[in-house]
């Protein structure tokens, strides 16, 4: 079969009946006749409406919108996106303020929720619905309709072949019908011929596929609105509860309300990383992360569980994901009278693969001055040839913490110093570190050093680990998965189930020999059509032979 198109137009729409409810520029739709162009109906308002609707639901528009969507998705992959890479966006804004202003105007940092991107896919889906609804109705009708009349000249159709038999016409047609039925054709007798059609599943699959696309979009759009995601850093030995106040950051969906949070608690008992130690090419590469947690759901006994990468923990309709980890050294600060005024873990931000990390410690109260400390933690400290320290392995083998100390105004009152991961030194003065008289403090676990100016002392008490957990509640997940599976099933049926019509006609000549004609017509791509006709003809003749002989 070289081309369904040419065979359709050649065999004539009288046979295929065209596909009236497919878009008029669909391959299988009846060819527009010149007259229809001349006798344009007068276009009233309704006429214009219908005209635009037909344009929007045409194959050409669908194709155009699909390709436009592909192109429109490109900018979002070139420019950092607020949702997936917020820090990238900040960096971009700092580096290229002018371009960033233009990009902001076109919402490029938010490409996938921008007005223009949304319009394209919404138009596409309107077109899709407008296209699929009439086809669905048509398909329901077709499911109940009789297979079409046998064409007068089968010899002009595909796979045309003949066989002869001694059986009479009635027996021949009867057995052909039985055989067609056993091959799941729907059949209809027309005189000395049988007309059969199969493969309605192809169209069903196509409709299911397109409908499931709408299903995916709608469930993502609506279901996602009821969900939320929250991020929380938890240090070994500490716990957090699933409540708004305890999250470091929280993104509610559009329809979120507070009572959606089920107040369970999660305590991090320990975090156990495993690092490669044998393979010389990969020393220190992480090969396993396990967070051992104790969870308490309201009214239940506490339970011990694990969270790993790729193995989130399900808890009360939420999933907890292990997305990051690092060290949170416990620093103890004492005043001049040796009274502990500060002692708590500080999660440090890793900056390299060996977990070299930056630590910011702010002590606002209890000393004569507010102090801020900028620390570098090296879990396994090594010395570079330049003399600088570096971390050479991510586990705690020989940890060193260096601290530069500042005194002055931390800016906490005017809101400037509120970011826990940065230290604004504008109104601070360095009292220990590179740009001061006193040297940078250098501590190993258990060490205690005096702060300059008799302020007090600082001790590196211990180095527990922290994990960053993401808590997600997404009610759309399951329905989206179901629609995706429908979509996939629909796609396969629609592409691989052959839809074809087959005809068998019989005539007897004067000598009593019956000639049987077989032919078929593909609807849509059908690679095996000709083989199928020949195969059917062989099976049929064999069946007839058995009948005649018995």
């Amino acid at each position, binding site marked *: 079969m070289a081309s369904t198109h040419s065979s359709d137009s050649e065999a004539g729409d009288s046979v295929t009946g065209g596909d009236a409810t497919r878009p008029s520029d669909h391959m299988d739709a009846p060819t527009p006749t010149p007259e229809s162009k001349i006798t344009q109906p007068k276009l009233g308002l309704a006429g214009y409406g219908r005209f635009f609707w037909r344009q929007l639901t045409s194959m050409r528009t669908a*194709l155009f919108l699909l*390709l436009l969507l592909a192109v429109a998705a490109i900018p*979002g*992959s070139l420019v950092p996106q607020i949702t997936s*890479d917020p820090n990238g966006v900040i960096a971009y804004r700092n580096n290229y303020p002018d371009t960033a202003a233009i990009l902001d105007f076109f919402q490029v940092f938010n490409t996938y929720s921008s007005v223009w991107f949304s319009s394209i896919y919404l138009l596409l889906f309107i077109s899709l619905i407008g296209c699929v609804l009439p086809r669905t109705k048509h398909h329901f009708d077709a499911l109940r309709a009789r297979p079409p009349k046998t064409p007068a000249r089968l010899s002009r159709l595909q796979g045309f072949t003949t066989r002869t038999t001694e059986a009479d016409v009635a027996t021949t047609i009867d057995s052909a019908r039985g055989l067609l039925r056993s091959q799941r054709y729907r059949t209809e007798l027309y005189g000395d011929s049988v007309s059969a059609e199969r493969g309605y599943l192809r169209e069903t699959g196509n409709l299911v596929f397109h409908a499931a696309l709408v299903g995916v979009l709608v469930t993502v759009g609506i279901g996602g609105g009821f969900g939320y995601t929250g991020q929380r850093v938890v240090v070994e030995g500490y716990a957090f509860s699933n409540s708004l106040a305890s999250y470091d950051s929280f993104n509610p969906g559009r329809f979120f309300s507070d009572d959606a949070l089920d107040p369970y608690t999660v305590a991090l008992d320990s975090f156990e990383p495993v690092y*490669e130690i044998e393979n010389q090419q990969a020393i220190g590469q992480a090969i396993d992360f396990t967070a051992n947690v104790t969870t308490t759901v309201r009214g239940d006994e506490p339970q011990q569980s694990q969270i790993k*990468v790729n193995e989130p923990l399900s808890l009360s309709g939420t999933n907890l*994901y292990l997305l990051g980890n690092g060290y949170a050294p416990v620093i103890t600060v004492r005043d001049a009278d040796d009274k502990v005024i500060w002692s708590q873990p500080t999660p440090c931000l890793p900056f390299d693969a060996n977990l070299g990390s930056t630590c910011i410690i702010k002590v606002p109260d209890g000393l004569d001055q507010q102090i801020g400390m900028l620390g570098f933690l090296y879990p396994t400290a090594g010395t570079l040839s330049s003399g600088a320290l570096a971390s050479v392995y991510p586990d705690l083998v020989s940890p060193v913490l260096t601290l530069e100390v500042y005194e002055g105004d931390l800016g906490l009152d005017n809101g400037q110093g509120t970011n826990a991961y940065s230290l604004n030194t504008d109104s601070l003065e360095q009292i220990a570190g590179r740009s001061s008289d006193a040297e940078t403090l250098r501590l190993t676990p258990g060490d205690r050093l005096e702060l300059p100016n008799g302020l007090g002392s600082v001790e590196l008490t211990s180095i527990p680990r922290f994990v960053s957990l993401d808590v997600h509640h997404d009610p759309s997940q399951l329905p989206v998965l179901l629609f995706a599976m429908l979509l996939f099933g629909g796609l396969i049926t629609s592409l691989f189930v052959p839809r074809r019509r087959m005809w068998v006609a019989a005539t007897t000549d004067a000598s009593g020999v019956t000639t049987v004609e077989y032919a078929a017509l593909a609807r849509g*791509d059908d690679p095996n059509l000709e083989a199928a006709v020949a195969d059917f003809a062989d099976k049929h003749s064999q069946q007839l032979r058995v009948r005649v002989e018995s």
Partner: protein
Amino acid sequence: MTETLVSYSLIAVYSAMAIYTFAFIMFAVDLARRSAESSDASAASATGLATASAQQASVMQAASSGGTATLTASPASTGDAAVSHSPKSLRIAMALTVIAWVLHVSAVIFRGVAAGRVPWANMFEFTLTATALIVGVFLLVQFWQDLRFLGSFITGFALLALGVGTSSFYVDVVPLPPALQSAWLVIHVFVASLSTGFFALAAGLSVVQLMQSRREAGKALKLRFLDTLPAADRLETLAYRLTVVGFVMWTFTLIAGAVWAERAWGRYWGWDTKEVWTFIIWTIYAGYIHARATRGWRGSRSAWLAIVGFAAVIFNFTVVNLFFKGLHAYSGL
């Protein structure tokens, strides 16, 4: 032990590349031979000299122009004739390709055994395995259709990819980072690479289709071997069928990737750069399938879409992996 296996793997790849080179040359010789034969044939205007596939082409042309007499000839039988009459250069080229492919596959296996896991966890390994799959699809497809005329395209492509892979992407065997330790690595990446094989063949067919349709339109093309290849609309049908298989696999890749992303990153879709490009490719091929069903778009225009789609696949694998920032930072480079 690991090192020995890794070096076996490398020896196997380099040998495979050497043999692919000879296969490539023989496929090129075959195209030259086709040119020569077809000009002989036209000079003598004797159909007897035309190759079997030329007959097949004419059958298909007759079929598409509505001829009735030739319609009863089943293409399968002409295909068989083409195989039994296949000329020496083509048979040698195919034999070389099979040998190279066996070496290539053993390189993949050695690498996998050396690493103790599936051999597709960094760019070098993707390249190694995906090209083996592409050539594998090419070889297997021959049982269905005689597409040996794409041999120089496929072996040339494999050679180029392996050359870049071994010289620029090579990394030693290292353990899997926790995010990649998942059954989805096995299935998501494998199916993605397999679909690349189908898209590659379809793109090759579409390129030949474009040349063929220019020739059929009477534009002077000096490539006489085209006479011996199937007609443009036959090429288009074949390209379509391969694309459709690739598209189903790509759809699966997309869905499986979303399921995995939910497990590993906590959300099933986040417009990460790799996700964006997988989506773009999917949309282009959906466009291709629509184009084939749209009046005025069947033919050369849809062929261009198949080529653009494959270009996007290559772009996704090379430029996006190497230069775009995102969560899929597994090139190992």
